[in-house]
């Protein structure tokens, strides 16, 4: 399945958002959104990905 992760097109095996984070070895403190909708950590396992989904994974960063 082809998705877009943080702006980059990507072929993935993961079927859910939780699987995707595991597949990409993303750990630690992140927040997620799929197609511009926030997906809480508790719902990542039941968030099924579809071809063409746009996934955003963000982490703490410096800000003003």
């Amino acid at each position, binding site marked *: 399945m082809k998705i877009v992760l*943080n*702006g980059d097109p990507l072929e993935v095996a993961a079927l859910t958002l939780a699987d995707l984070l595991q597949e990409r070895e*993303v*750990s*630690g*403190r*992140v*927040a*997620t*959104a799929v197609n*511009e*909708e*926030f997906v*809480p*950590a508790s719902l990542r396992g039941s968030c099924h990905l579809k071809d063409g989904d746009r996934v*955003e*994974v*963000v*982490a*703490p*960063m*410096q*800000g*003003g």
Partner: protein
Amino acid sequence: MKTFYGTALPNPLMLGTAQYPSPAILEQAFRQSGAGVATVSLRREGAGGAGAAFWQMIQDLGVLILPNTAGCHTVKEAVTTAHMAREVFDTKWIKLELIGHTDSLQPDVFQLVEAAKILTEDGFEVFPYTTEDLIVAERLLAAGCEVLMPWGAPIGSGRGLNNPYALRAMRAEFPEVPLVVDAGVGLPSHAAHAMELGFDAVLLNTAVARAGDPIAMAQAMMGAVRAGKLAHDADPIEARDMAEASTPVIGKAFLT
């Protein structure tokens, strides 16, 4: 003393965490100045997990965390970002930025009010980055905001308070609302000026982070906000046009 959604600040300096020459200098700027609030952001997680190291450092500082929605141009984008920030930083506080103009980074106050309403209803405690417009301020308060953060000048400009008249009017209009000058401060005198007007805190980033010596500048800013607050509370004299001798004339030796 006013509280920010029930939380008393340890001091009136809110300090940004961006643009420092190094993480070590950022850390020391906080430690040496004692700034009690840190603004932070969210960005795409790249390889290497830089976010984790930053988060650890901020936590070790033991400061209050104020995440922002910097760079958001639409209500939808700001609301989604706020939700992500609440989960990552584990706080209801959100510095709501909705940028309306590319060059001045002026807030889009129409979208700001709309987003503030949505977020307040979602349980957020919103710190809106706004202009000095009193009607917008009223709308933000009606939307549920309990803090207002008008700009001093455009973000990163270092111009100081562009419109002290309007900021003074805002202070007079909303005596009970915690007010923060956010953005535009370049020098300690600007920060002191905001506090002398009766503002409750000053939020700044670039003036410290881009100074030649950010650690020293952070300390200077802390000195300035403390001095400005003391001065405001001490009820300063009114300015006058003509001199008024401070040394008593009575009893002066007659020598001519």
